């Protein structure tokens, strides 16, 4: 009897062993990878130099002209802001080591890109960066090839002329950083 049972079990096993796989469904994984795009490119005016050499310029300052304009483009796949700040707390004289206040240098934003800062604004230092495009609460809309211009002018503020500051002749320098921040 045991042998008979063993035989039947072997036969059943043989039947199962030759079964075919039948496939009537398939799983398709879908993966989406977003590689963030954040690009800020200064296209013109990466080195701005004001030369003050007349009394009129000391008293009335130097208004914006093409050579005092920084142009940059932004491409961003996220809403964004652009911050701007000076590397130093003041301009630093290269010969004398004396300083000149940052707020002698002021700027107006222009260009076709959205959400540019309005009005005439002074350059600020790192600790108090200025949001020149968008704000933390209302960032600029994402997009590609968004053009902006920074129209610089020096010493044009009434009652705050370079003459009144009594600055010695020197070359006053600082670096200005533009920072693209996704929101």
């Amino acid at each position, binding site marked *: 009897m045991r042998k008979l049972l063993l035989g039947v079990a072997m*036969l059943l096993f043989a039947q199962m062993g030759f079964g075919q796989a*039948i496939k*009537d469904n398939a799983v*398709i994984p*879908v993966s*989406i*990878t977003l590689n963030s795009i954040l690009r800020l490119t200064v296209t013109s005016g990466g080195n701005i130099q004001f030369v003050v050499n007349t009394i009129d310029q000391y008293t009335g300052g130097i208004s914006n002209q093409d050579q005092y304009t920084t142009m940059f483009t932004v491409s961003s*796949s996220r809403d964004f802001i652009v911050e701007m700040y000076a590397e130093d707390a003041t301009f630093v004289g290269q010969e004398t080591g004396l300083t000149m206040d940052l707020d002698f240098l002021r700027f107006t934003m222009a260009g076709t890109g959205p959400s540019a800062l309005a009005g005439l604004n002074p350059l600020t230092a790192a600790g108090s960066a200025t949001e020149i495009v968008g704000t933390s609460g209302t960032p600029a*809309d994402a997009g*590609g090839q968004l053009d902006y211009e920074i129209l610089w002018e020096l010493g044009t503020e009434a009652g705050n002329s370079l003459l009144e500051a009594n600055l010695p002749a020197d070359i006053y320098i600082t670096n200005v950083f533009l920072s693209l921040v996704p929101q």
Partner: protein
Amino acid sequence: MNTVRTFFIFLILFLAIGFSSNKLKAQDPLKDLRVIGNFIQFNYSTLNHFNNGIELTDWTRVRIRFKYTGTNGWELRIFALSNKIHFEGNSTYDIELEDLEIIPNIISSNDASASINIDFTLGQGPYNPSIPDQVLVSGNEGTVLEDPPVEIEIVITYRLGPMMNKPEGIYFVNLNMLLVEK
């Protein structure tokens, strides 16, 4: 000695019946669904991708080969295994399933009635015969006994739209493709 002889008798019996069983059971699979290109990867890496989306043309090739004795026809269904295309991070940024367009094209078929469901919309599963929108392609013909099996070949194009202002990272969903009789 007697035990050894019995063992060999059963062994021969086993092999004989086993192989004869193989011959008896050898037949065309009743349903066979083969998929080439069964991993879909959308890689957004340029502004053009972010602005206009990505299309993966004829990305998946599906070959269906089956026999059945029913009279109501067949359906190829697709549904998702989740209700969204999930972002690896905050679920706020999940993508809606209907944003993923699935566009089939029948490139060969011996079922003249095979047709594409123009109302197909990707939705969450499971299989539900009362949801016609799950049907991607369907037909009315069958095959009986020794008739040749129904064979259809389909290519599928996938399209996903603009992703501006979506956070970078991985988004994922599984699709289930199912061949059923109506």
